[in-house]
């Protein structure tokens, strides 16, 4: 039996008195493509941020590649080497060129030489189809291009799992598809991924597991067919009706 890439067992998290996550159970196997959706404030971003420990959970167990996440240096090391992350707001480093954004992690965290790091960076820039922008600043690029750079920056660390936290929510509508196309390609190549998104067409296309969250709980999980065509929970039905109306 293969090791789960991500395993969450009964995870609880509070912000002060407010419980954002209530007993979250989630298993992601290598090669799985999980899409999490739900209304805003439902805790879906927090799930992703707990997986790579940008937030610490208070109860339950999170395992990444079998390593229990307890905040120890060794556990953090496991996350940083296995999990890549793409943010809603891109979070590119504005004072560095695209190329410098890409080589920073490989050079400083992995100790790669500049030559090797730049070769790898070019490889992934070509993958996201913007090698010609390597020497520009992030501010000179469109939102869609910036998000593709952010994806390339994550790929440069060659992670086993990619987390996407609403990767297209900050984009102008005409740029959404160029970013989603890149993510779909990654999925087709077999990348394990957890994607928080409202793009239901995309979800239908790539997901092999849908997760619907509301008020800090996982309300429903299932294959895309079951989830979209025959949602069991009333809350899921309402949500889907609202989001698919237009």
């Amino acid at each position, binding site marked *: 039996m293969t090791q789960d890439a991500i395993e969450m067992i009964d995870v609880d998290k509070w912000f002060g008195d407010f419980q954002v996550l209530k007993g979250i159970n989630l298993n992601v196997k290598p090669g799985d493509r999980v899409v999490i959706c739900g209304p805003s404030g439902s805790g879906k971003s927090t799930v992703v941020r707990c997986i790579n420990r940008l937030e610490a959970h208070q109860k339950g167990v999170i395992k990444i590649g079998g390593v229990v996440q307890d905040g120890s240096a060794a556990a953090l090391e496991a996350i940083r080497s296995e999990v*890549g*992350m793409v943010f809603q707001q891109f*979070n590119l480093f504005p004072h560095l060129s695209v190329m410098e954004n890409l080589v*920073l992690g490989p050079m400083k965290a992995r100790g790669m030489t500049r030559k090797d790091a730049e070769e790898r960076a070019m490889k992934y820039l070509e993958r996201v189809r913007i090698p010609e922008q390597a020497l520009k600043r992030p501010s000179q690029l469109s939102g869609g291009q910036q998000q593709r750079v952010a994806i390339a920056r*994550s790929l440069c660390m060659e992670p086993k799992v990619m987390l996407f936290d609403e990767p297209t929510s900050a984009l102008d509508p005409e740029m959404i598809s160029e970013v989603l196309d890149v993510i779909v390609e990654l999925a087709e190549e077999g990348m394990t991924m957890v994607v928080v998104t409202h793009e239901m067409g995309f979800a239908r296309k790539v997901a092999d597991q849908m997760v619907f969250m509301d008020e800090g709980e996982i309300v429903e999980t299932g294959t895309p067919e079951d989830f979209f065509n025959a949602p069991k929970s009333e809350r899921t039905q309402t949500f889907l009706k609202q989001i698919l109306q237009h």
Partner: protein
Amino acid sequence: MRIVLSLAALLALSGCGSSDIWGWYVVNPMTASGWTNITFLVNGMGATILLSVIAASISIVLGLLVALPGLSERRGIRAINRFYVEIVRAIPLLPMLFWVFYGLPIVFKSMGLSIQIDPFWGAIITLALSDSAFTAEIYRAGIQSIAKGQAEAAKTVGLNYFQTMRYVVLPQAIRRILPPLANQFIYIVKMSAFASVIGMQELTRRANELVVTEYRPLEIYTLLIVEYLVLVLIISAGVRWLERKMGSDERG
């Protein structure tokens, strides 16, 4: 500009008219004695600059070291920063200078160490310490102004805390805090005048000494003010140049 010029003309004219009030001869570059006096005064410039530059450099490093614990998520570590800032910035410069210059050697002696502190280093320690509390607050505000997502993104590409600071957060923060840091540097230049009271031969000390022999405080202190003005204007021009350079850097 016009007002300044007419004011200068008025001062100069009144100087010619009634010798009871004005006596610009003490600093008249056309006479030998006047020139000697000017040279004596301006020769303090080197000490003032050296004092300010060293003190500011120490303060910039110390301020960062004090600021970092202030950004911690743990209250106990933040307390170190608050304690330092609140205490140090509450101490007036002059008493602190006396305490360092006259007091510290006694403290050292009671610990069995014989460390003497000369006016130069006494002044530098005091200026740097006093200023570091303010620099620390500037750093803290500057670092906090950088979006949290920047540090998070740095983490996700494997950078540790110091790499995140060094390569991602500080380079961005420095651009924003350059103007207030320059302010602090100008403040140090002016506060270095206090070093005169422990015998440091800088601009103000020299002016004081000349006043004692020439009895012409008004003219000599006027020149002293002009000396500081020139220094500060040079610094301002330098900072503006630096800002332009860094600004263009950010735009690419």
